[in-house]
C-alpha cells in the first residue's frame, strides 16, 4: 500500500507498470522465488490540496481488492472493492502473459463496488452497490473523496472481512470500518498504536482474525 502526499499529474497506469516491473526485477534476483510471490493488492491514495474550496482531494486507486475508509467530523465513508468469484486481478499477473490471459478468460473482468456511509458509531446511513466491467485490468478502479483538515483516510486490505466472534460468527466489515480510522492522536506511529489497541481489545473479548491485514492511513493535520 502506498500513500503519496502530492506531486505532478499522476499517470496511474505508468505507476502500476513501473511498480510491478521493479518488483518483478527484485524477485528475479532470487532463483527460488516465483513471480506469484508478488500476488498482492496494491492500493494507492493521492492527496492534493483543492484550492478552489479550501480543502483536499483524495484519489484512491485499487489494483486488487480492498477498502478505502474516510473519517469525517460526523461520519465515516467507505468503499469496498471486490471481484467476481473473489478473484482479484493482481498486478503480478501482468508480468506473465499466460497468467494474465488465463485470468481474463476465467474471471471475465467484473468487479463490485460497495459504497457505505456510517455514523461514528457504525450505524449505516446509506449503501450503494454497483458492478463494473474492465477490459484492461491494469487500469485501476478509482474512487474520489473530498477531505478537510482533521479528516483521516485509511487504505485497508481485504483481511478486514475475516474477523470472527468467539462463537465463530463472521463480523461485518462495515461494523469494524470506523475503528480503523478512530485515531486518538496523529503523532508518531499512530496507525500502529490504533491497530495494536484494536488487537488488544479484540483479544480481550475472544474476537479472532483469520487473514493477514494491512493498513495505511493519513490524517490531515489542523
Amino acid at each position, binding site marked *: 500500500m502506498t500513500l503519496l502526499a502530492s506531486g505532478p499529474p499522476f499517470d496511474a497506469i505508468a505507476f502500476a507498470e513501473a511498480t510491478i516491473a521493479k518488483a518483478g526485477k527484485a524477485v528475479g534476483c532470487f532463483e527460488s522465488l516465483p513471480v506469484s510471490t508478488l500476488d498482492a493488492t496494491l492500493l494507492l491514495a493521492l492527496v492534493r490540496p483543492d484550492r478552489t474550496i479550501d480543502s483536499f482531494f483524495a484519489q484512491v486507486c485499487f489494483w486488487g481488492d480492498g477498502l478505502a475508509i474516510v473519517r469525517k467530523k460526523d461520519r465515516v465513508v467507505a468503499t469496498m472493492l471486490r471481484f467476481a468469484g473473489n478473484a482479484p486481478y493482481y498486478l503480478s499477473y501482468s508480468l506473465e502473459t499466460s497468467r494474465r490471459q488465463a485470468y481474463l478468460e476465467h474471471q471475465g473482468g467484473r468487479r463490485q463496488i460497495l459504497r457505505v456511509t456510517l455514523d461514528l458509531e457504525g450505524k449505516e446511513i446509506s449503501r450503494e452497490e454497483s458492478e463494473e466491467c474492465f477490459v484492461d485490468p491494469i487500469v485501476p478502479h478509482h474512487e474520489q473523496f473530498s477531505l478537510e483538515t482533521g479528516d483521516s483516510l485509511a487504505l485497508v486490505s481485504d483481511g478486514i472481512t475475516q474477523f470472527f466472534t468467539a462463537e465463530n460468527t463472521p463480523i461485518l466489515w462495515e461494523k469494524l470500518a470506523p475503528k480503523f480510522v478512530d485515531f486518538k*492522536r496523529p503523532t508518531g*506511529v499512530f496507525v*500502529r498504536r490504533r491497530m495494536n489497541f484494536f488487537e488488544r481489545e479484540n483479544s480481550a473479548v475472544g474476537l479472532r482474525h483469520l487473514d493477514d491485514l494491512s493498513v495505511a492511513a493519513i490524517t490531515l493535520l489542523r
Partner: protein
Amino acid sequence: MPKLMDTDLDQLTTGSHYKFSATKIDALGASEYTLAHLVVDESGSVSNFKAELEKAMLTTKQACEKSPRAENLLLRATAFSSSVRELHGFKLLKTIQDDDYIGALRLGGSTALHRATHEALEATLAYAKTLADQEFLTNAITIIVTDGEEMEFDVTTDQIAELIRKARVSEKILESLTVVLVGITGNQLTTRKLQGFQKAVGITQFVDVGSVTPGKLARLAQFVSQSISSTSAALGTGQGSKPISFAF
C-alpha cells in the same frame, strides 16, 4: 537556582494529590512505553557516598540509552528524605540532562520510605492511565534505593500493598508492574526490616547490596539498567520481566 518550567512536560496530580511532571502526550511518537522510576534516598546517612550515588543514577540513564528499547523508555527520578522531591518527571532519555543527577541530591532529614514508594507508584499509575486512555501500551518498573528503614510512618504498608495490588489487576492500564527494593546498608537489622517491608507490601524483588563501595554502586547502576531493559523487552508479552539476579 530553580529550573525553568519545561514546556514539553505536563504537570499532573495523583489521587493522593502528589504532583508530578510527565512528557506531554503529543511529544510521544511510539506505540508503547515502559515507565521506569528511580527512587533514591537522600537522607543524611548517604552523605559518605552522595557523589557515587548520583553518578550511579547518571550511569543508569546512560546505559539505558544504549538499550535497543531506548526510544520506548520514559524515566522519572525522585529523591526522598523526610519528604519526596522530583528530580525530573517521566521523560524520554534524550531529554534528560546530566545535571538532573550530578549535584542533585540534597542531603538531610530522615527516611520517608513509605511515602516515597507510595508517591512513585501513584505517579506511575496516574501516568499509565493517561497513556492508556490514548491507546499506548505500557508497563512499569519502580526501583527504590535506600540505606535506611522507614522513619516517618505517615503512609502505611497496607496503603502501599493496596496500590501494588490495584496496579497488578489493572492490565488495561498497565500490562505489568515490577517493583524492586535495593538496600544499600551493611546493617543486618535494617536489611531485615527492608525485607519485612518488601513482603508486607508485595514488592517483586529485594536486592541486598550490603555496605556501599564505589564498585558496588557501579554494579548497582548496571543491575538497574538491565532490569529496566528487561522490563521493556517484556512489554507486549502480557508478562512482567523475570527478576535479574546480580552479585554485589
